[in-house]
């Protein structure tokens, strides 16, 4: 048995649907986007990749603590939150994954298109993606994902792309 808010008791088969209905109503009325699960693949979820740090999240107002100096361009593009985590490939290649939740897809597009060079190679990821020898950047809806390896290795591009697909699948 479960107590309703005014103290009356409701049978559990009535209380649970009522609560679910209230949650749906709140979500719709506040315009919240669907809450995403953790977009960071766990260790081993993508072959060879290990998640080596806790995920850290920064609201727009605190982004300077992470990327002071770069924060303003993300803020002006409408960043809402940025989450980041470190990874290591086969115990050797270190990389960082940044997932920025922008206000909308326009903001993600703006960041993706900033600073591209002729070396950028288009890759099939999300709505649009590019790859360099040591990095992969893509957008999917309001999400902008940047994966950067700290070193250059022959198999880095392939490994980074695999990790990017792992992140994309969780967005």
């Amino acid at each position: 048995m479960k107590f309703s808010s005014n103290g009356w008791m409701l049978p559990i088969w009535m209380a649970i649907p009522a609560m679910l209905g209230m949650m749906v109503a709140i979500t719709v009325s506040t315009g919240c986007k669907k809450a995403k699960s953790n977009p960071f693949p766990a260790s081993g979820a993508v072959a060879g990749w290990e998640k080596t740090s806790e995920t850290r999240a920064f609201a727009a107002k605190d982004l300077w603590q992470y990327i002071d100096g770069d924060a303003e361009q993300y803020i002006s593009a409408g960043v809402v939150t940025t989450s980041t985590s470190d990874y290591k490939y086969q115990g050797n290649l270190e990389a960082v994954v940044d997932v920025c939740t922008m206000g909308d897809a326009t903001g993600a597009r703006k960041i993706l298109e900033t600073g591209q060079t002729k070396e950028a190679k288009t890759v099939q990821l999300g709505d649009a993606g590019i790859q360099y020898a040591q990095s992969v950047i893509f957008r999917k809806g309001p999400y902008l994902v940047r994966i950067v390896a700290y070193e250059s290795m022959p198999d880095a591009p392939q490994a980074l792309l695999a990790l990017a697909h792992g992140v994309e699948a969780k967005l």
Partner: protein
Amino acid sequence: MKNRRDFLKTAATGAVLLGSRSKLGLAAILDKQAGAAKSKVVIARDAALHGADGTLDEKRVQALLDRAIASYTGRDKPVEAWKRIVPVGKVIGLKVNGLGGKGIATHFALVMAICERLQQAGVKPGEIVVWDRNARDLDACGLTINTDLSRIRTYGSDVSGYEEQQESWGIARIKLAKILTRECAMVVNLPILKDHEMAGVTFSMKNMYGVVDRPRDLHAGGCNPAVADLNCIPAIREKVRFTIGDAISSVYNGGPSFHPEHLWQPNALIVGEDRVAVDYTAWQMIERKRSEVGMPTLEAANRPPRYIATAADAAHNLGTNDPQRIHLMEV
């Protein structure tokens, strides 16, 4: 050259003390430079600093540092040269820069080389504090936290905290890291050369954003005049007296974060006391690289580092940005 374990062991066991001096050798250098009416800046290069596989050669970093310092001081023996730069018996801070992450942070090999020479010049391990904003930034430089007074200390401003009292100069209204105000008698500035999305270039003066509580508040207007104003705060102006700028690796676009697609290796150190002259020299290096790869100038990109000229103006008087008044030595 020692590896990291040996380095920490040396740090723990101490080094040779060479006795104290009553006056900084630096003053003599300053006098000499004033006589010449030029600010000396040394760019030391070694094209073979990185091996064929891209690995940094630590022995060559030490040799490059020695060459840069010898050229700057006019003393061939590294120990004698360092004795002219730092006071003995005082705490020396080394302000690194790890903001951009592991790919573009002050190199551990350079920090290690400087610490070794400082100790040989008579500075005790516990009198050396290597610091940045926080543990993450230090980790990006390959440094782990240590607050043990018997060893070289490495910790962030997040550990020591910031002064309660706000200081101001111009538009800069900040609280300084206690490491700067209470620990260090002198700071050797170890920035890493980077393009900067807002300021144009970040190097010596801009690295001081890492010694204040809210650097975010200093970014308006391309960080101008904030960078110059900040460097006029007495504790910064008076204590941060020497720059050994890391231009071993750099990003010529997309900074201050790490953008490997814009990474290049100047394989150089830029050394000097005049922070404005050092920054002017570093800016020219970035511009040459941008030109080489066909990128627009920072002026054309609408983000020239205007704070450099501001720092040189009569109100700030932090140094010179006039190439005619910079004695540039390339070695």
